[in-house]
């Protein structure tokens, strides 16, 4: 790698790290004021948890010497023999391993105990994330080797986390009053600030995934900007038509949905294709967030509607719009005559969804059976901030 490449990937790693506190604010604004610190902590503390897991064995399970296309070997246990460029790649990938479980925290908001979150995140970061990362990112992982492409983590990060969120919610159950009471965001300005930080960090996430300061990185940067913008336009337009008002939360949610959807294809599609992907994600994710009320599961902050659905939209549309002219590392999509690649993308989506759902469901059951998942009735009503952390976010009148 040139000095420029190293400098860019270091910078991108820092940008991706910054996404997790950004996500904390994005989510924190959407919960009630009695639970905002708990929401922030579930994200912020995940940075520490996953850093430890990744250094000790997560990295080697994902990127160690391949075993049967399924998992990395133990040759890099504790980062043994990981130096120079490999060490740089390790820390860039660490930031992805951090934000992926953090995404799940939005689904379990306002009722999952903090200790349960720590245990679940540790297990998930150790046993689920490294496997899916191996399949999608390692050159010999079975999905990658088969020809599936996931530029920056549509499968590995967003579908993986989105399905896990759904599985945990099934074990955890809904918040008290879900579907009956008005459970409202307490601070949309925080959510918008978080959205801005996510958007900024996503340039590192996507353009950094080129692992070089080159034309592919520039393409990914440009498509990221376009995907986010078009999805915010699409979401707000859809809700304006349906409910009569353009909302701040709609614009924020749409932008994030677009960032999710452009992630798998950022370095593989043209700017015009990114417009299609962004617009589709904005409209489809707006539709998808209403599913939880119809189907009755309390995915509190719409991790399924935004990350799972956005990830599926982006991964499948990559199968349509991928262009080998943009990037020689990808096969042409359906639009350019590549039907095989399209089918592989669809199969990969199903495989990751099936594995992550089952594995995450089992892990949630394990946590429930050992230390319990859910806050008590009193803790949930009084708020997790004061009962689990003995702190208040907003002290007024002093």
């Amino acid at each position, binding site marked *: 790698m040139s000095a420029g490449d190293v400098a860019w990937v270091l910078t991108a790693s820092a940008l991706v790290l910054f996404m997790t506190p950004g996500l904390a604010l994005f989510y924190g604004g959407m919960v009630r004021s009695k639970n905002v610190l708990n929401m922030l902590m579930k994200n912020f503390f995940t940075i520490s948890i996953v850093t430890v897991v990744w250094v000790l064995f997560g990295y080697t399970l994902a990127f160690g010497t391949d075993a049967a296309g399924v998992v990395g070997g133990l040759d890099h246990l504790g980062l043994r023999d990981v130096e120079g460029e490999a060490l740089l790649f390790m820390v860039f990938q660490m930031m992805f391993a951090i934000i992926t479980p953090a995404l799940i925290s939005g689904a379990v908001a306002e009722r999952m105990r903090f200790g349960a979150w720590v245990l679940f995140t540790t297990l998930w970061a150790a046993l689920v994330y490294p496997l899916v990362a191996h399949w999608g990112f390692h050159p010999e992982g079975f999905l990658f080797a088969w020809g599936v492409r996931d530029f920056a983590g549509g499968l590995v990060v967003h579908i993986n986390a989105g399905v896990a969120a759904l599985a945990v919610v099934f074990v955890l159950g809904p918040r008290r009053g879900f579907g009956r009471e*008005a*459970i*409202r*965001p307490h601070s949309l300005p925080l959510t918008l600030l978080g959205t801005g930080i996510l958007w900024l960090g996503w340039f590192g996430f996507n353009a950094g995934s080129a692992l070089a300061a080159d034309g592919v990185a520039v393409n990914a940067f440009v498509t990221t900007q376009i995907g986010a913008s078009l999805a915010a336009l699409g979401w707000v337009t859809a*809700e304006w038509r*349906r*409910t009569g*008002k353009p*909302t701040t*939360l*709609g614009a924020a*949610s749409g932008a994030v949905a677009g960032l999710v959807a452009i992630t798998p294809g950022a370095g593989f599609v043209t700017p015009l294709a990114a417009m299609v992907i962004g617009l589709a994600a904005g409209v489809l994710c*707006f539709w998808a*967030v*209403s599913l939880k*009320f119809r189907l009755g599961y309390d995915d509190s902050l*719409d991790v399924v*509607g935004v990350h799972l659905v956005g990830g599926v939209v982006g991964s499948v549309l990559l199968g349509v719009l991928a262009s080998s002219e943009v990037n020689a590392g990808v096969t042409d999509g359906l639009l350019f005559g590549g039907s095989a690649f399209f089918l592989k993308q669809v199969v990969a989506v199903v495989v990751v969804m099936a594995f992550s759902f089952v594995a995450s469901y089992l892990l949630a059951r394990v946590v429930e059976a050992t230390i319990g998942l859910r806050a008590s009735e009193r803790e949930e009503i009084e708020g997790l901030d004061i009962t689990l952390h003995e702190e208040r976010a907003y002290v007024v009148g002093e």
Partner: protein
Amino acid sequence: MKLIIAYVKPFKLEDVKLALRGLGVSGMSVGEIRGFGRQSGQTEVYRGAEYQVEFVPKSRLEVVVDDDLAEPAVEAIQGAARTGEIGDGKVIVVTVDDVLRIRTGERGGDAL
């Protein structure tokens, strides 16, 4: 003496204050409260999901006046707070037994 308690729309509070001051009312207390009457809440929409929020923000104003000022004060409040739409609020008038100014010990009307 009368205690007048008025529940008004928050954006009308300033007009109400000015109207009462125009009558020579020398002091008042206000609070930001939430409540509902016939308006029975308002609709809010988050990610396409509509919620009926029953307790909506209102301002509660309390003022104690001499008997002869009570009726003009009530009319001034209505005049300033009325929009003609549902949810304009209520005015409650209560008879007051006594008032004490803590600093000086003055009682009754002298304490106002």
